[in-house]
């Protein structure tokens, strides 16, 4: 489920949207909610923050006195907040194995008091649209098209079941995330 981390920059932006944080705090929160047995290396945290700072999405304050690898407190900029909002509100391209991205969006939305259920509804709509296209391919195509479309349909259906179950569990998840 966590084979790739396409969402690290957005996830860090989302955590910073909640409150300005040090790198080690971001790593800690990332590992709690999104790491699941595969902690984010410190190197990747700081490399990502550097890139975000270079692109004007976050600003790093002056180093604070004290021990530890980095005492900079990072703050999301307006451009960073805008980019995060765009990512959060845009349904992901429906494709198999999307859970990483969807899960991150749901948790961050709940954490920030955004309409997680509406995001799930929008994602459900995007998935059903893709399923509609594949169903039409099946109705007009040959056997090979049918089998390939079936493969996509079954995977999208699995995603949709996850979306439905997550929608049913939103209240419990919200309580946990906001605790």
């Amino acid at each position, binding site marked *: 489920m966590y084979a790739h981390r396409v969402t690290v920059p957005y996830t860090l932006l989302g955590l910073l949207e909640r409150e300005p944080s040090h790198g080690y705090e971001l790593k800690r929160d990332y590992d709690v909610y999104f790491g699941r047995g595969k902690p984010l290396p410190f190197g990747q945290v700081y490399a990502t923050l550097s890139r975000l700072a270079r692109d004007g999405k976050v600003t790093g304050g002056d180093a604070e006195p004290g021990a530890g690898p980095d005492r900079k407190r990072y703050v999301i900029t307006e451009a960073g907040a805008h980019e995060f*909002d765009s990512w959060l*509100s845009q349904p992901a391209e429906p494709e198999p194995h999307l859970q990483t991205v969807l899960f991150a969006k749901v948790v961050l939305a709940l954490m920030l008091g*955004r*309409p997680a259920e*509406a*995001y799930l*509804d*929008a994602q*459900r*709509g995007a*998935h*059903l*649209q893709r*399923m*509609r*296209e*594949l*169903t*039409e*391919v099946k*109705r007009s195509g040959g056997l090979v098209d049918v089998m390939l479309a079936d493969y996509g*349909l079954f995977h*999208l*259906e699995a995603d*949709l079941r996850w979306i*439905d179950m997550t929608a*049913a569990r939103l209240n419990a998840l919200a309580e946990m995330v906001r605790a």
Partner: protein
Amino acid sequence: MTSLNSAPPPRAGDSLIEAKELYLSFGQTPALTGASLSVAGGEVVAIMGPSGSGKSTLLHCLAGIFPPDRGEVWYDGERLDTFSDARRTELRRTAFGFVFQFGQLVPELTVADNIALPLLLNRAGRKAAYATADAWLPRMGLDGLGARRTGELSGGQAQRVALARSLIAHPRVLFADEPTGSLDTLAGEMVMDLLVGAAREEGTTVVLVTHDARVAAYAQRELIVRDGRVINRTDVAAEVSG
């Protein structure tokens, strides 16, 4: 492909069926809590939602089977919910077709008898009714089964008989409640291919209740029912974009 792109809801005035703020409770249990929707003529629309969300109740209200406690049901420019029982029954026999999950065929009758039934009830001549029923057999992949009792059929075959029966009188609207719910994937797919194919050929409007996304994907548009209300896509888009 364009015909199946997620269609926008119909504009005011284009609707063949419209529900406005429907409320219905069973005892103390609210089933519909302000459900509104609009379906254009010729559209194939799927109503989805969790168990107990009110989707089947909504379909029954649209079809004039359950009168709502409050709200309006419009069919072809008329207030269906104000019709007398007799007029609603007449409408269901002449303008609507139904496919349910189970138990809709008469087991003592043959396949041909079951398919011809709506025409016979509508006082069509017996010969013409059976000739029309026979013509539906190959269309539904039921060649050679006309004389078979429906109790001897597989689930998929029985559902195709039910589909032929629901369409034989050329209804303007087909209401289907979990039409593949008791079938395996392949049999369900065959039923949906035939249902949507026949509806397109006949220009029939289809209102389809399903919890199955693969079935809903046959529709041009899906409506999500939650807690007795239809989730409005425009509202979702507005909420998401903040």
